[in-house]
């Protein structure tokens, strides 16, 4: 892999890290598997592209974040007020968003940004320009998250994912915490989608497909390698995980593997990581039973 390809992978990793951070908020902190992400990522990309084309790239990013936030709110509304199971609520939101995304993009399956300025244009002449922009955005988001989870509201959101009964009996509206948490998570996803659209100079209808699994894979890789039981450490681990994922991706692509196969690999990574404790438990039990059988025989 060339240095140029590596730099590209790190840039993408930093931007996609925002999706992984969003999943950190919803899946790890709130303990909600939020499938809205597939839809809100594309929504962010679509909104960003359309506003960049028509107005200004910063406006595109701003509205991408806002749109992601709204998508999270819809999902939270389905889960809390209408009591729909989290997985189904996510699928409903994601499916509904498909139509909305198509509308946002004016019925086209792709919006191209070739002759307009993006947030990356001012630095396009510098050798590490794009990397610096992506790094700044992701670090700012990390800083915000670390500080946010130290506030009392942040504490309440963490506790909601840990023991909801206890939080309600501390006189805290857990529904509100889910609204905030899912809103925040999807705002981050929207931001990621918005940046990707401007980075790649196009927004594609299918850009969000499988994003949940990719985000989870990044999250799990990061936690496995760098994770520690503290919130700031985990946030950093998630970002590094996303970068590693993109480097693997670039490496596999350089070897001539089809890009579409990587979704299968992501799914396998997530499956293995989540089932790891069960598999090792079975193995240990198997060994114990074997030894016990030997003892009886002797």
């Amino acid at each position, binding site marked *: 892999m060339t240095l140029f390809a590596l730099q590209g992978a790190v840039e993408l990793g930093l931007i996609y890290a925002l999706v992984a951070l969003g999943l950190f908020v919803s899946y790890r902190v709130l303990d909600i598997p939020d499938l809205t992400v597939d839809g809100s990522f594309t929504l962010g990309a679509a909104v960003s592209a359309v506003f960049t084309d028509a107005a200004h790239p910063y406006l595109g990013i701003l509205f991408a974040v806002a749109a992601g936030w709204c998508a999270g709110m819809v999902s939270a509304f389905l889960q809390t007020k209408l009591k729909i199971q989290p997985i189904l609520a996510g699928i409903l939101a994601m499916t509904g968003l498909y139509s909305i995304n198509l509308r946002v993009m004016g019925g086209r399956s792709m919006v191209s940004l070739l002759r307009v300025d993006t947030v990356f244009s001012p630095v396009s002449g510098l050798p590490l320009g794009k990397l610096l922009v992506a790094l700044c955005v992701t670090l700012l988001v990390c800083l915000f998250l670390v500080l946010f989870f*130290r*506030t*009392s*509201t942040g504490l309440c959101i963490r*506790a909601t994912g*840990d*023991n909801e009964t206890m939080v309600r009996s*501390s*006189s805290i509206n857990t529904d509100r915490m889910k609204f905030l948490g899912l809103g925040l998570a999807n705002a981050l996803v929207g931001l990621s989608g918005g940046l990707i659209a401007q980075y790649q100079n196009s927004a594609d209808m299918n850009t969000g497909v499988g994003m949940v699994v990719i985000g989870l894979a990044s999250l799990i890789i990061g936690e496995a390698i760098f994770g520690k039981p503290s919130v700031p450490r985990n946030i950093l681990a998630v970002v590094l995980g996303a970068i590693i994922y993109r480097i693997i991706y670039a490496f596999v692509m350089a070897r001539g593997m089809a890009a579409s196969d990587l979704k299968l690999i992501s799914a396998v990574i997530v499956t293995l990581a989540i089932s790891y404790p069960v598999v090792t438990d079975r193995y240990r039990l198997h060994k114990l039973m074997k030894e016990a059988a030997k003892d009886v025989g002797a």
Partner: protein
Amino acid sequence: MLELRKVSKSFFPGTPNERRALVDVDLTLAPGDFVTIIGGNGAGKSTLFNAVAGNFLIDAGNILLDGKNITFLRDYKRARQIGRLFQDPLAGTAPNMTIEENLAMAYLRGIKKGVSLGLNKKDEEFFREKLSELGLGLEDRLKTKMGLLSGGQRQAVTLMMATIVPPKLLLLDEHTAALDPGTAEKVSELTRKIVERDHITTMMITHNMQQSLEMGNRTIMMDEGRIVLDLKGEERAGMTVDGLLALFRAHSEKEGDNDRLLLS
């Protein structure tokens, strides 16, 4: 303080499985009352607590706390004034958060929540002091994950959390039943101490007859969703465990007769 007026609640109404869990329950607690509640399984004790805490809406009647009608108030809003402990020591705390984070959560009760820091130095001192009152050596383990504590330790901390901002009403649902006898005794003692010090109006469900007479100033017995016995003052002072058991048996035997009638 707490007033229940003709409170009724049925589960699965209109089906063959209908169960009348509370039937026209009238109950008035004076400020500072410590009521112990006894009764067989399915007598309606926990349902009574759930009704007061707002886990569900009651079918009929009114619930007043401190003169305010809370019948239709959402559970988390009532929680501002009502503290509650469950039999399961795991129910009242967040296992993946530290002891101090758990206490900070409980300390937020009744305070406006916003962007202020969840934990600050001043609170930490206060939590340390509060934990040392428990006498379990937890004051030096503020950064320990709650899930690493034993059941008894967790229940003691839960009690502290429920009373760190003294509630108007404290509901104890067999909160020592899952603990070993020594720990149970310690937690009971702690309960007595905190309730007396802060003059918290308290209701405690227990299956321990001895405890039901020793603790508190009033004992009620429930059966089939009704309050069938209300002991206080001299009558209670003169009551023995055997006497109470006899009354308890008299009620359950009456039920037994009913069953026999049904079956024959």
